[in-house]
């Protein structure tokens, strides 16, 4: 059973389209994240949700909108896609993003490679 699963794995689309990426985790974790990895492999956090509540919202265009229907799911919707949105998007989860005790170890999904033409 995959711990953090993302769909689709590959997404090729035209500029201006709207697309969504779905993420589900079966680890019972409280916090989920979206990271963007660009062509140079640089990983940057985009959003974080803790128990369905948005807790981190880094500087990303408002064309990106996360939605968390429950704590096991975090979806990413992107409007009006641009060439610069081409990247690999990783979903991740951790037991808690609010550090109390113990480490904040992230479990990553396999990634969704988005190509905008």
């Amino acid at each position: 059973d995959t711990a953090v699963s993302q769909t689709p794995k590959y997404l090729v689309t035209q500029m201006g389209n709207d697309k969504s990426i779905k993420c589900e985790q079966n680890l019972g974790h409280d916090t989920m994240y979206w990271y963007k990895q660009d062509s140079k492999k640089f990983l940057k956090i985009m959003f974080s949700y803790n128990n369905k509540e948005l807790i981190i919202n880094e500087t990303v265009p408002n064309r990106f909108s996360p939605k968390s229907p429950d704590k096991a799911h975090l979806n990413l919707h992107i409007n009006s896609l641009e060439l610069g949105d081409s990247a690999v998007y990783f979903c991740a989860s951790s037991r808690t993003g609010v550090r109390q005790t113990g480490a904040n170890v992230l479990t990553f999904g396999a990634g969704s490679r988005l190509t905008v033409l």
Partner: protein
Amino acid sequence: ELKVEQNPLFLSMQEGKNYTIYCNYSTTSDRLYWYRQDPGKSLESLFVLLSNGAVKQEGRLMASLDTKARLSTLHITAAVHDLSATYFCAVDIPSYSGAGSYQLTFGKGTKLSVIP
């Protein structure tokens, strides 16, 4: 703004050799993580370092943390081809936008190629 800098960014080494990857960070933190990413794959947690002086070892890899110097190292002993991957360090710091929450900030990664 937190900066996490790894060097080198690219490392080509022969099998059997030793080498060290360095991770410097610019703000106080006592929690540092190392991840491995194989080409086209996801990231896998390697080491969790939770205090000054922490040292962890797994096979040919050993990671250490010096919080006073804000430095972590990943030492590779007698490299083998299977270690070829990109290695990321990440630092756990308070989030800018979430009260009481923390987030991982990643370095740019070190792409390691081990040549037979």
